């Protein structure tokens, strides 16, 4: 049973509503699509709809209906830090920083990757693909691996060495592009268009899930909506064995 309140994909240009199938743009005017949710239910039940911790706490306002498709590496629930010293240096009264570095691959992208890869599972795709300067690449690759999908990562050659290492470690197929990064984006867009026009018979075999879909943008949203960090925890049964790194010695405080 689905607890997602997503109802339609609505065009931001012409307002045409589409059903929640795989779709990258408005059928009528090629405009961007925005997810629309059951606002009445949201207003009626409010926070009671939210359960658990992390990104999937917000499952009712994300478009992945089947819990089996909700891939996770523990994203979301990152700290909202009050930064008084930096506020005074910058000359603002109060400064809050939502620090998304603690996400599983170290970036905000894990939010959108969880929903993008969830959407790939939902629509029956076997591979994902993204153009990246590093962060989205390692994130989509990590979540694809987690979901058992193949990933084709098109990376910018000038990406930092740690980002390239992270992508190489997590993806099945890393393609490094030499040239202007913006051109790579256009080329990739063209590849997506061409794949979409593949004949229905061979389409299943090479179905890719381009990560520019509305489902991906939806995952990015709870960065702001998850600001008050929930402390709720899932109940866990104790494991039969627990492996931990051990090293005697360590840090001491100096008085």
């Amino acid at each position, binding site marked *: 049973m689905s607890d997602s309140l997503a109802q339609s994909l609505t065009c*931001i240009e012409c307002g045409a509503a589409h059903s929640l199938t795989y779709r990258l743009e408005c059928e009528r005017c090629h*405009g*961007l699509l925005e997810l629309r949710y059951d606002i009445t239910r949201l207003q009626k039940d409010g926070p009671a709809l939210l359960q658990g911790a992390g990104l999937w706490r917000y499952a009712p306002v994300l478009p992945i209906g089947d819990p089996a498709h909700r891939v996770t590496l523990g994203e979301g629930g990152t700290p*909202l*830090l009050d*930064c008084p*010293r*930096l*506020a005074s*240096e*910058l*000359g*603002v*009264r*109060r*400064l*809050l*920083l*939502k*620090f*998304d*570095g*603690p996400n599983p691959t*170290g*970036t*905000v992208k894990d939010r959108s990757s969880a929903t993008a890869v969830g959407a790939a599972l939902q629509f029956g795709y076997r591979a994902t693909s993204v153009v990246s*300067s*590093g*962060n*989205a690449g390692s994130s989509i690759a990590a979540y694809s691996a987690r979901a058992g999908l193949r990933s084709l990562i098109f990376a*910018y050659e*000038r*990406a*930092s*060495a*740690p*980002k390239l290492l*992270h992508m190489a470690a997590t993806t099945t197929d890393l393609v490094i592009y030499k040239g*202007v*990064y*913006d051109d790579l*984006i*256009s080329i990739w867009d063209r590849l997506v268009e061409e794949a979409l026009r593949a004949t229905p018979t061979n389409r299943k075999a090479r179905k890719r899930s381009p990560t520019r879909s509305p489902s991906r943008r939806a995952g990015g949203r709870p*960065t*702001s909506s998850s*600001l008050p960090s929930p402390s709720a925890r899932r109940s866990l049964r104790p494991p039969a064995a627990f492996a931990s790194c051990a090293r005697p010695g360590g840090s001491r405080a100096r008085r």
Partner: protein
Amino acid sequence: MVAAQATRANAVARAFRDGTAITPLKIGYTVAEGLAAGNPGKKGDWVLRLLREGKGLAGDAEDDEILATQRKLARVEGIWAGPTGVATLAVLARLVAQKLLDPAQTVCAIISETGLKTEAEPPSRTGTAFDHDSLRRLVTERLA
């Protein structure tokens, strides 16, 4: 809502400032790697529309300001974030300095990435010790 960009890839901020539509830019490298888009396409138009309808702001910061902000955030608050992640703060500093943003408000900025994937020059080797005496001397000097 405030949109932050690197000056080297500021198609949205520029259009916002000039009150025009977005003109795609030919861009080079910026330390804010994740912001390196010269042609934000339909999504850029959408952002611009949301900023204008919602009475938001857009701004940009130069690469050296972004790197200085990265060092400051680490030292002042202990948050080690990447250049892409701190572009929001570098832009915030500019908007406050330009009096485009009211400093009496509470401001919330998203720091979108860890600094652990940053590529940079290795740190200075001053403060290196090699045995008990040199270590002791160094610590005594620092604590003096």
